[in-house]
């Protein structure tokens, strides 16, 4: 069979390339130097953007999980699985950039700062999801289990978030006092550009991952014949 070029995918990839380069330019050339934290604050734009995509990826899996349980259509399962794998990459980036940022600003790689903590918990949920999928043999069953787990895991994230926040307010966090910063309009613009670029990158990776899974399905189907 002739190899088809995925034109929309290619356009999406090129758009996100341009967006990422633009965001990089804004982050390093346009955004002002933060007064107290200095250059290291620039990691903020990548940190927040990857956290957003990490959370959004989880939300997509949650919705796709519900859709799969309702319809049993393979395409929803592919979407859920792809979104988890792409989201896992971004949430890992969130935790790593968070640690890199925390070290110079708060003096330690890890502080139990609520947002950083919830990202770490999301990372563990993502890993559990992937491990669950890998350890079920029947594809239909794996899809059902994963859908259920994606739904249950997603609904606990807000509860965990409140638990962590209240816990930290009751025991005041000494470190976070120095972490606050005022955003200038240039910073906000850069952040928005960064969010858009990361979201496009997520869409690109998601599309490629979905395609990969569809090709794997076709290959498996072809082998059975």
């Amino acid at each position, binding site marked *: 069979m002739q190899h088809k070029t995925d034109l929309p995918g290619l356009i999406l990839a090129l758009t996100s390339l341009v967006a990422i380069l633009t965001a990089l330019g804004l982050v390093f050339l346009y955004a002002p130097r933060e007064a107290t934290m200095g250059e290291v604050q620039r990691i903020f734009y990548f940190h927040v953007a990857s956290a957003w995509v990490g959370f959004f990826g989880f939300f997509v899996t949650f919705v796709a999980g519900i859709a799969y*349980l309702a319809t049993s259509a393979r395409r929803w399962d592919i979407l859920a699985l792809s979104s988890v794998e792409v989201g896992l990459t971004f949430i890992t980036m969130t935790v790593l950039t968070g640690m890199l940022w925390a070290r110079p600003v708060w003096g330690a790689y890890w502080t139990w700062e609520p947002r950083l903590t919830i990202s770490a*918990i999301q990372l*563990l*949920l993502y*890993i*559990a999801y992937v*491990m*669950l999928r890998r*350890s*079920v*043999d029947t594809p239909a*069953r794996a899809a*059902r*289990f994963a*859908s*259920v*787990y994606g*739904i*249950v*895991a997603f*609904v*606990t994230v807000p*509860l*965990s978030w*409140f*638990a*962590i926040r*209240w*816990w930290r307010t*009751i025991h005041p966090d000494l470190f976070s006092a120095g972490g606050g910063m005022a955003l200038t309009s240039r910073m906000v613009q850069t952040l928005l550009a960064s969010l858009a670029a990361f979201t496009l990158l997520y869409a690109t990776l998601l599309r490629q991952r979905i395609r990969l899974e569809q090709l794997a399905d076709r290959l498996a189907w072809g082998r059975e014949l």
Partner: protein
Amino acid sequence: MTFLRHVFAIVAKDLAAELHTKELVSAMLVFAVLATLIFSFALDLRGALAQAAAPGALWVTIAFAGTLGLSRSLAREELTGGMEGLLLAPLDRSAIFCGKLLGNLLFMILVELLLLPLFTVLFEVWLLRGSILLITALGTAGYAASGTLLAAIAVNTRAREVMLPILLLPLAVPVLIAAVQATGALMEGAALAEVGVWLRLLVVYDLVMLAVALLTFGYVVEE
């Protein structure tokens, strides 16, 4: 009414099986005692440190002992074909879930009723208060609700028992934080109203988990 009758029939079945084998409660209890001793050795829990660490040690013990009981309870159904029987019986799927949940909850609470006096004696902290029992019951209910659903998933994976803690513990974060904080405050003599925020969080978690589990359990056991 038939729903409740079905639920109680399943609970009665689990109780009869447990009275016969005693494997769930005895395994959880022995593990819990061992964990308590290990906490005591590892952290050298005496005096003020014991006071500070007791709520955390208690809930870690409950959580880990709980995973043992939960996965055994569902594994027993799978191995003996009990789940198949329940699915073939003219029962609502949600009745099966509620029955298993109540049974698991009952066994966990039984273990906790023995664990609380043990902690009280070993760590010189006063845990036998009505308010602490309430928090323990609420925390255990939420943990057992998510645990029963996930154990039904875990027993059908290749890794079986290994899978349950990996799936369950990241979901149990709200329960563990709320229960540890509330237990700690109540232990130091706070009134129940002072831990209202944790109490509410536990109730919300319990209700959310119960709702989600009831909605999804049917898909988990479907063949």
